[in-house]
C-alpha cells in the first residue's frame, strides 16, 4: 500500500481546518465547499485504503526522540483501523453534506466547518495512532474540537456550560489515561502498540500492576465514551448543533473509547480482574442510561441516553473478551445512531428548533421520507430481527451468556428497555395528531438532507448482515465473531432477545399510542437520579471549599503575616519603603552596589 494514502487521510482535514480558520472565516460558502470536499476525499481515500493490502514497513516519523523515550507519529493500518476509517470518514462525509443545509443560515458557518474539519483530523489521528502517546495527543484534540463544537453557539450560557463540562469531565478520565500510559512505559520502556504487544508477555509483571495499569488506561475510555461515573457530560453535549451530535456524540468520538480498548485488547486480556470491572461498568451504564431514557422528553436527550446505553454494551463486550463483537456493534451503531440523530435534526429543523417530543406528533404524514428512514434506524436500534442492530447486539448478549449470566440478564433487560423507550419516542413523534402549531408544518428537507438519511437507512439495514458486516470487518475480527457464535447458546439468546424486543415494544405501544401526555411520571428518572446535583454538591464541598480555604490562607497567613512580619523584622521599618516611594534610581543603584560589595567582601575574606 502506498504510505501516502493514510498520511493524506490524516493531514487533509488539518490543512482544510487551517485554511478555513486562517483565511476563509469570512467566506462561508468557500469554507463549506472546501470542508465538504475534504470530507468526501477522505472517504474515497479510506475506501482505497480498505482495498489495498497492509503496509510492509511501519509508517512513521519521529516526533520526540530523547534518551530512552521514543514518541513517533506513526500510522497503524490494520483491519481494525481500516474498518474504523470507513466509519469515521463515511459518517463524516454524510454529516458534512447534511450540515450544508442544517447550518445554512448560521452566521458563523465558516467557524463551524473549520471546527468540523478539525474534529475529523483529531478523530482520524486516534484511529491511525500506532502508539499511546500519539493517541493521547489526538484524544485531547478530539476533546477540544468537541468543546468548540458543543460551544458553537457560545453566547448561550447553557452551551458554554455544556462545553466546559464535556472538556473537564474528559480531562478527569485523561488523568487516569496518562498515568496508565506512564506506568506501562516505566515497565516496558515503550509506548508503541506493536512493540508493547511483543514485549509485555516477557516482562513478568505482577497481576496487581497489570490490573492497575489497564484500569487507569480504561479511565480514558470511561471519560471519552461517557461511561459511569463520568457519563454526565454527554446529555448536556446535546447543546451543540444536531449534525455535531450525530457525528461526534453518537457515531465517532464517543466510540473512540471503545476503539482504544479494542486496540489494546492484548493488554486487557492479561488482567481478568480488570476485565470484569470493565464488563460491569459497561453493562451498568447500559441499564442505567436506558432507564433514564424512558423518562426524557427532549428528543435529542433520549437519543443521547440511548447512545450511552449502547456504548455500555460495547464496553461490556470488551470486558467479556469479545473486542470483535464490540467493534461490530460500534460499526452498526454508528450508522443507525447517526441516522436517528440526523432524522431528529430534520424534525428539529422543520419545527423551528422544537425538541420536546410532546409538542410533536403526526409527523409520519408530513415528513414522509424522514419518517421512513427514521423507522429503519429505530428498528435497527431496538434489535428488530433482520436489521443490523439485531445481529451485533445479539453477539454481545451471546458473549455475556457464555461468560456471565448476571451481565447477560442486565443486557437483556437493557434490550427490553431500549425497545420500550424508542417505541415511546417513535409513537409520540410520528403517530397520532400534531400536538403543537409547529408540528403541523412538518416537511422533509432538501436533497442534501434526505440523501444522507436514505444512505444511512440503507446501511442501518444491511451493515449487520454477516456477509457484509463480516467482510468489512476483516478476517481477524470476523474470526472472533464466529468463535462467539460457535460457543453455544446462540438459539436461546436469539429467542430471548427477540422476546425482549417484542415485550418492550408492546408495552410502550400500549402505553403511548393514544397518550396526550406521559402517563408515567417517575421523578428520579426524570431527574437523572439527581447525579448532576450530587456532583455539584460534591464539587462545592471539596474543590470549591478547598479553593476558598487555600485562598484565605494565602491572603491572610502566607502573605499577610509571614511576608509582612518577615519583611518588618528583616529590614527594619520603612527603610526600603522610602526608596520606593520616590522611585529613586540612586537607591536602587545603591542596593545593587551593596550586593556587589558584599560579594567581593566575602570573596576577599577567604
Amino acid at each position, binding site marked *: 500500500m502506498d504510505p501516502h494514502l493514510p498520511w493524506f487521510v490524516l493531514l487533509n482535514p488539518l490543512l482544510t481546518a487551517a485554511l478555513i480558520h486562517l483565511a476563509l472565516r469570512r467566506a462561508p460558502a468557500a469554507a463549506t465547499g472546501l470542508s465538504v470536499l475534504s470530507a468526501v476525499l477522505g472517504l474515497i481515500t479510506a475506501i482505497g485504503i480498505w482495498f489495498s493490502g497492509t503496509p510492509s514497513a511501519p509508517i512513521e516519523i519521529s516526533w520526540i526522540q*530523547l534518551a530512552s523515550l521514543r514518541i513517533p507519529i506513526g500510522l497503524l493500518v490494520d483491519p481494525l483501523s481500516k474498518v474504523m476509517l470507513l466509519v469515521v470518514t463515511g459518517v463524516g462525509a454524510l454529516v458534512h453534506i447534511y450540515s450544508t443545509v442544517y447550518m445554512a443560515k448560521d452566521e458563523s458557518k465558516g467557524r463551524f466547518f473549520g471546527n468540523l474539519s478539525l474534529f475529523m483530523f483529531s478523530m482520524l489521528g486516534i484511529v491511525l495512532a500506532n502508539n499511546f502517546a500519539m493517541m493521547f495527543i*489526538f484524544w485531547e*484534540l478530539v476533546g477540544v474540537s468537541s468543546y468548540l463544537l458543543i460551544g458553537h453557539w457560545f453566547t448561550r450560557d447553557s452551551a458554554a456550560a455544556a462545553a466546559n463540562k464535556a472538556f473537564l469531565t474528559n480531562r478527569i478520565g485523561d488523568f487516569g489515561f*496518562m498515568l496508565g500510559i506512564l506506568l506501562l512505559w*516505566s515497565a516496558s520502556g515503550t509506548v508503541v502498540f506493536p512493540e508493547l504487544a511483543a514485549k509485555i508477555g516477557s516482562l513478568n509483571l505482577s497481576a496487581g500492576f497489570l490490573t492497575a495499569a489497564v484500569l487507569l488506561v480504561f479511565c480514558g475510555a470511561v471519560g471519552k465514551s461517557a461511561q459511569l461515573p463520568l457519563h454526565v457530560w454527554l446529555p448536556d453535549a446535546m447543546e451543540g448543533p444536531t449534525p455535531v451530535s450525530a457525528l461526534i456524540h453518537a457515531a465517532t468520538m464517543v466510540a473512540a473509547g471503545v476503539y482504544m480498548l479494542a486496540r489494546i485488547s492484548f493488554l486487557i486480556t492479561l488482567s481478568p480482574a480488570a476485565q470484569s470491572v470493565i464488563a460491569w461498568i459497561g453493562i451498568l451504564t447500559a441499564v442505567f442510561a436506558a432507564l433514564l431514557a424512558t423518562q426524557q422528553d427532549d428528543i435529542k436527550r433520549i437519543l443521547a441516553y440511548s447512545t450511552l446505553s449502547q456504548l455500555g454494551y460495547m464496553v461490556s463486550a470488551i470486558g467479556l473478551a469479545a473486542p470483535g463483537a464490540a467493534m461490530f456493534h460500534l460499526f452498526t451503531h454508528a450508522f443507525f445512531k447517526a441516522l436517528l440523530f440526523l432524522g431528529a435534526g430534520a424534525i428539529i429543523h422543520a419545527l423551528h428548533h422544537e425538541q420536546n417530543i410532546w409538542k410533536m406528533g403526526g409527523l409520519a404524514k408530513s415528513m414522509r421520507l424522514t419518517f421512513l428512514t427514521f423507522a429503519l434506524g429505530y428498528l435497527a436500534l431496538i434489535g428488530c430481527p433482520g436489521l443490523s442492530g439485531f445481529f451485533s447486539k445479539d453477539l454481545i448478549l451471546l458473549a455475556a451468556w457464555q461468560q456471565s449470566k448476571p451481565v447477560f440478564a442486565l443486557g437483556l433487560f437493557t434490550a427490553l428497555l431500549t425497545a420500550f423507550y424508542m417505541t415511546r419516542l417513535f409513537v409520540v413523534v410520528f403517530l397520532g395528531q400534531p400536538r403543537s402549531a409547529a408540528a403541523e408544518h412538518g416537511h422533509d428537507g432538501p436533497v442534501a438532507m434526505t440523501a444522507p438519511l436514505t444512505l444511512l437507512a440503507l446501511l442501518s439495514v444491511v451493515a449487520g448482515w454477516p456477509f457484509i458486516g463480516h467482510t468489512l470487518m476483516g478476517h481477524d475480527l470476523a474470526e472472533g465473531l464466529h468463535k462467539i457464535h460457535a460457543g453455544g447458546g446462540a438459539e436461546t439468546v436469539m429467542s430471548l432477545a427477540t422476546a425482549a424486543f417484542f415485550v418492550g415494544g408492546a408495552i410502550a405501544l400500549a402505553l403511548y399510542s393514544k397518550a396526550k401526555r406521559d402517563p408515567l411520571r417517575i421523578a428520579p428518572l426524570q431527574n437523572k437520579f439527581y447525579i448532576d446535583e450530587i456532583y455539584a454538591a460534591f464539587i462545592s464541598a471539596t474543590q470549591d471549599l478547598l479553593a476558598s480555604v487555600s*485562598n484565605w490562607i494565602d491572603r491572610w497567613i502566607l502573605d499577610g503575616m509571614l511576608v509582612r512580619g518577615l519583611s518588618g523584622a528583616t529590614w527594619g521599618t520603612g527603610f526600603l519603603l522610602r526608596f520606593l516611594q520616590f522611585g529613586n534610581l540612586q537607591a536602587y543603584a545603591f542596593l545593587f552596589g551593596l550586593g556587589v560589595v558584599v560579594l567581593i567582601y566575602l*570573596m576577599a575574606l577567604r
Partner: protein
Amino acid sequence: MLNLILSLPILGAIAILLGAPARKTALGVSAAGLLATLIALMGYDRAQGGFQMVYSSTLVQAWDLKYLLAADGLSLVMLLLTSLVTLAAVWLTPTIERRENLFYACVLLIAAGATGAFASQDLFFFYAFHELALIPTFLLIGIWGSGERRAAAWKITIYLALGSFILLVGLVDLYNALPAEVRTFDMMKLQKAASATLIPAAAQSRPYLFLLVGFGILISLFPFHSWAPDAYASAPTPAAMLHAGVLKKFGLYGLIRLAIPLLPAGAQQWAWLLLILLVGNIIYVGLVTIAQRRIDLMLGYSSVMHMGYIFLGIASANAIGLSGAALLMFAHGLSIALLFAMAGLLRPHHAGLAFDRFGGIGKVAPFLGAAFGCAAFASIGLPGFANFASETLVFFGAFKPAVPAELTGKFQLATTFALWGVVISAVYMLRAYRSVFLGPVGKGAEALTDPAANLRWPLILLLAFLLYAGFFPGNLLSYLQPSIEALLPK
C-alpha cells in the same frame, strides 16, 4: 554575536534616555535583537554542541573574573525566548503619558539584564545582570503600575532582594565548597570539571539548600510565591510580560546550569523537600487559582502554579525531565506573556479585570477571543502547543527519575499530583474563559473591539512560535538535549 545581542537593548536604552524617539528606537532594537538571535541560532553548530560564540575579556586575573559571553543550546533557547517576548512587549506597550522615554528604557533594560544573565558564563556577571534587570522592574511597577502599585512594588522589592541575597550567600558557599584548583567564576570551566564527586557529597547539602531557596524565591516556589500575583496584577503590561515570561526563568535556568552539574548529591538529599514544595505549587496554588475572580490575579497564580511542573522536570535530574523543563520554560514564557498581553488589552474596559464585568467577548472581538482561547489552551497543555510537548517530557522524565530507587516512588506520587494539576488548570482556565469570553455580552465588553491590525502581529508572532515548537518539538530539543546531557553529572 552575543555582544551584539546584548548591546542592542543597552544602547537602545541609552539612546532613548538621551532623547531618541522612544517607541521607534525600542521597536527597532528589539526587532534587530530577535533577528540577531535567530541568526545566532542558525549559526550554532548542533553537531559540535557545547559552548560557542565565546567572547572573553579578563577583568581580575587573581579570581579568574572575566567578562565572558558564550552560548550553548540552553542559553540560545532562553535568548530566543527573551528576544521574542521583548519585541512583543515593546510592540504592545500602550501610549505612555508620563515619562515615556524612561518607561521604554526600563523595558529595554529588563531585556538587557535577562539577555546578559543567559549569555554570561561568568558567575559574577550571571548574577549581576539579573540584579540589573530587577531595578527597572521595580521602577515600572512603582511608577506606572495600577491598583495598589506601591504596596506591590514594595513587596516584590523586599522579596526579590531577599531571594537574591540568599542566592548570593549560596553562590559564595558553593564557590567556597569547590576544591581550590577548580575555584573559578568561569561557568564553562566549572561545567567541564563537574562530576558527582567534585564536591564531597556531605558538603553539597548546604549550598544546594541556599541555591534552592534563593532561586526558589525568585521563581515563586511555594511558599515563597505570594509576591508574584500582586506584582503581576499591578505591573504595567510590558513589565508583567517580561518578568513572568522571561526574568522569572532566570532562577530555573540557574538551577539547571549550576545545581544539577555541581551539586547532584545535594539535589538528591533535598529532593523530598523540593517534591513537597512543588506539589504545593501545583495543587495548593492551583486551588488558590480556582478561587480567583480577576483575570490578572488568576493569570498571576496560574503562572506560579506552572512553575511546579518545571521544578518537577528539574528534580527528575535526567535528560528527559530536564529537557522537558527547559522546553517548558520557553513555552510557559511565551504563553504567559501572551495572556498578560491580552489582559492588558482588556484593562482599559475595567481596571479591576473582574470576571463578572465581562462576558461574550468572543462575540464582539472574535480575534481576541480566538487568540486568548489559543493561549489559554496552550497554558493548560493542549497538544499542538509547546506546553504539551514539554509537560509530557516532564511527566515521562519524572516517572523514571535519575535518583536512588527508594526515591522513585515519591517521584511517581508527585507526578500523579502533577497530572491532577492538569485537571485543576483546566478548571480555572475554562471557568475564566467561559465567564469572560463566552456567554451573553457583559457590561465591560460592550465597548470592546478587536485590537487594530498592527497590534495583532505581536500576538500572532508568539502564538506561531508556540505552535511551531508544539508541532515540531524536535527542533528546539536538538538544541537543548546536548546541552542538558553535558550538564548531567558524569
